[in-house]
């Protein structure tokens, strides 16, 4: 007998202070005009919230100069890629101190599309787009000049300086083959995919630049979703208007691709050699050293199968430990539709935690790191379960929107089935974003009081975060499926202090990706990992942001670089963007 089925319809060790490593203190470069214009949407102070400080997030898309619409090319055949994309990248490609925006786009699909087709872009409406941020905070489309129009049916994007030349490069994933674009440092990019040998195949999704073997060069991890082709499979009810996207169970899982950076512009595929080749249905990817053994680990959000936690054994290989670490399934041992993910320390205990978005009725999965190699499913006790029960989430990030020293949650939402309301009338295909405030004890949904955008239903997918205007408050850019991209500006009124840390590696990879940062104030310690990867299909600002509450000084900043070098700064002033260069000394942990 069965229960009647439910509807299916996811060691910091620091050395001594080395003040010489503080090379540059960057002044704020506020794009004042945009800030003033953007602030006009809400001029009154939000009402006091019983749950604490609400946010104030404002849609400034129209004024930003970004006018982008993701072309999913929906068909009557309900080809699965149509509902899955796309990603966003926030990165500073020209090193002018201001974040730029890269948006991934689709391609036309025939209705029907013959099996074996690799869709190709056919016109400007399908181009990927690069928007350069000008000094006034608005954006200019520089796609053609940059040479980033792209080719195939795009999915995700990863950002990293793979050749350590000081300029961020782009890796764009797609259905049918990916592209590596080398940043030439003059505002242009060169497609070096073939030379680098990283084109891949199949249906790629999220990707990460991360130095897996500590050689100072970023390697490339690329998730793939399913063994899938343009077959005419009818899913959903056999009546007009009810055809639906197929459940991933209809398709076989597929191995990810892992490319080792040879340090000479070429890469070698090593997924099996490294123990990272387990077939999955990967959508979300995030990195952190969850057991503090000094080696970066990987978490893979798989759709409707067990989630993967790849533990770095320290010898260049990995072992998958999701089930024994208790992050592979939900509290009842059920799999869920893992999509977006973040891997960060939300409870300030020094151990990176994990959050995974999934579909309505599954509840987003929050795993609190117990510090012993295990995690505890904390969605229910932390307030996430009830808050997310009726929602479907994709892009997700821990971010401290009010700079109070606790990492909150911002989530891009929308169901994958455009027919969901026909069968489950109280669920929604289009959903507003969700903002959950971290009170230090649990999470509270403050969306309703945090701005109009949290009442606007979008089919949101990819989301990247970053401080667009360098005002110390973290913003977001959200891509929607067959819809516009939204620039979401954080205008939360707060007197709280903050600091942004921009790390530059010298022994380590130049981005400092994988470095662990600890910030200590009178209120306690906070921890973060330098990364561009997490959320869903997206790449975020690599700079590390800490909200500092009422503390105008950071007593101590400690950085453990991927090289093993440990660097400590003392009594650092708040409210600045601090450039930290990896010292050349041998203070290794």
């Amino acid at each position, binding site marked *: *007998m*069965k*229960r*009647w*089925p*439910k*509807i*299916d*319809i996811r060691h910091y060790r620091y050395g001594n202070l080395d003040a010489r490593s503080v090379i540059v203190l960057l002044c704020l470069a506020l794009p004042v005009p945009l800030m003033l214009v953007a602030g006009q949407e809400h001029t009154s102070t939000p009402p006091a919230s019983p749950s604490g400080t609400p946010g104030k997030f404002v849609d400034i898309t129209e004024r930003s100069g970004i006018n982008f619409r993701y072309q999913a090319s929906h068909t009557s055949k309900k080809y699965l890629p149509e509902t899955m994309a796309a990603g966003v990248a926030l990165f500073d490609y020209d090193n002018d101190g201001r974040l730029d925006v890269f948006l991934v786009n689709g391609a036309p699909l025939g209705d029907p599309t013959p099996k074996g087709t690799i869709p190709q872009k056919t016109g400007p409406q399908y181009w990927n787009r690069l928007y350069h941020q000008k000094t006034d905070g608005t954006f200019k489309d520089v796609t053609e000049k940059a040479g980033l129009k792209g080719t195939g049916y795009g999915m995700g994007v990863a950002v990293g300086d793979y050749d350590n030349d000081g300029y961020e490069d782009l890796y764009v994933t797609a259905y049918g083959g990916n592209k590596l674009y080398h940043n030439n440092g003059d505002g242009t990019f060169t497609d070096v995919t073939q030379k680098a040998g990283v084109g891949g195949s199949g249906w790629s999704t999220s990707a990460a630049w991360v130095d897996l073997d500590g050689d100072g060069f970023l390697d490339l991890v690329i998730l793939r979703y399913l063994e899938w082709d343009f*077959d005419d*499979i009818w899913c959903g*009810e*056999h009546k007009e208007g009810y055809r639906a996207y197929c*459940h*991933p*169970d*209809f*398709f*076989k*899982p597929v191995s990810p691709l892992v490319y080792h950076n040879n340090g000479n512009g070429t890469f070698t595929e090593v997924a099996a050699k490294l123990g990272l080749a387990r077939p999955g*249905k990967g959508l979300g990817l995030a990195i952190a050293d969850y057991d503090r053994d000094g080696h970066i680990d990987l978490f893979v959000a798989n759709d*409707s*199968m*067990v989630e993967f936690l790849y533990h770095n054994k320290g010898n260049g290989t990995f072992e998958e430990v999701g*089930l*024994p670490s*208790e992050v*592979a*399934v939900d*509290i*009842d*041992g*059920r*799999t869920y539709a893992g999509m977006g993910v973040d891997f960060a320390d939300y409870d300030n205990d020094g151990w990176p935690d994990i959050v995974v978005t999934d579909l*309505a*009725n599954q509840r987003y999965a929050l795993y609190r790191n117990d510090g012993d190699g*295990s995690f505890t499913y904390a969605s*229910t*006790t932390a307030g996430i*379960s*009830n808050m997310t*029960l*009726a929602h479907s989430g994709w892009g997700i990030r821990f971010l401290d929107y009010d700079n109070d020293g606790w990492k909150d949650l911002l989530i891009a939402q929308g169901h994958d089935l455009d027919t969901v309301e026909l*069968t*489950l*009338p*109280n*669920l929604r295909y289009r959903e507003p974003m969700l903002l959950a405030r971290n009170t230090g004890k649990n999470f509270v949904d403050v969306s309703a009081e945090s701005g109009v955008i949290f009442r606007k239903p979008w089919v949101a997918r990819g989301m990247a975060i970053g401080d667009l205007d360098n005002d110390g408050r973290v913003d977001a850019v959200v891509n929607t499926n067959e819809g516009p991209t939204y620039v979401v500006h954080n205008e939360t009124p707060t007197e709280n202090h903050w600091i942004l840390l921009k790390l530059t590696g010298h022994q380590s990879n130049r981005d400092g990706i994988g470095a662990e940062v600890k910030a200590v104030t009178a209120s306690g310690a906070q921890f973060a990992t330098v990364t561009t990867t997490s959320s869903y299909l997206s790449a975020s600002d690599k700079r590390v942001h800490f909200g500092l509450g009422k503390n105008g000084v950071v007593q101590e900043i400690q950085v453990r670089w991927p090289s093993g070098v440990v660097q400590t700064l003392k009594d650092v002033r708040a409210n600045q963007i601090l450039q930290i260069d990896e010292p050349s000394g041998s203070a290794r942990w």
Partner: protein
Amino acid sequence: MLVAFFVACVCSIASSGQTSDDLALGLSEFSKGNFSLAAALFARAEEAAPGTTDALLYESKAYIHLEQFTAAEGALRRYLLAHATSSDALYLLGYVLHREGKAAESLETYTNAAQHRTPAGDDLKIVGLDYVLLNDYPDAIKWLEKAVEAEPKNKEAWYFLGRAYYTKSSIPEARKAFLTVLQLDPRDAKAENNLGLILESEAQPEAAMDAYRKAIAWQNQSLRPSEQPYLNLGSLLMEQSRVSESIPLLQKAIELAPGNAICRLKLGTAYLRLGKLTDAQRNLEKAVQLAPDDPAAHYQLGKLYKVMKALDRAKAEFDRTAELQSRAASSKPQ
């Protein structure tokens, strides 16, 4: 349906003038509920005058009451040798084959029966349930809809129609069907329990719990109360972190359905969360025994062994979980 059939049989006997003592005695015992004795008497009557009476038909009916469907099928098939066009026997055989899980044969028999008499709502209901057994929900819904059209007050047909809709995630239609059941019988616990499931799927846990509580209260007077509302309420309370409250409900569910692996799994998991490891071990090991291919049961048992520091056993359970999950992830045919 069976009572009506029995009355029809009695009339048939009287009108045909059959006088066999065994046949009359059998009918008498049948009416008293002594089905085993009745079956034996009907068999003897048939033996005395093979093929000349309806004894085999009655014998099959007695076996149906005894839930001995193989024997019932045998009696009916022998009866049909002499009465090949008997619609009563054919419809009854269709029902018996359904109860035996022989859905395709049942459908074939119903098709044959329908050539001799228009099917009643109950017959259409069984046809629909045959399609459920064949995992053909569109056809199941089609025939269950015909059943309620033929008999708008057929509560069971509405209930099964609701279940078919629910399984196909047609929630508005399922809700309507269960509400119709409740119009016909305002204290139908099964329908109320299913409304609870719908409310859960709609992310309304408080309303769902209310429905489960009502279902539990309404079925208290039932001779055969179901474990389902206890299981559903207990499970939902666990999801709300109200684990202690879930324990007595899950215990009751197991009392009602000792062989239900899900009940064991839930109770074992609840004990695990409360740190009652011995109780957790007993129930989780039983759950794995009852459902050896359920990855969730192996996962919870792995977690328990890990807490108990039985790491080798934990690893074995996690490995088994991974194997089963991997199999499930690519199990659906294209």
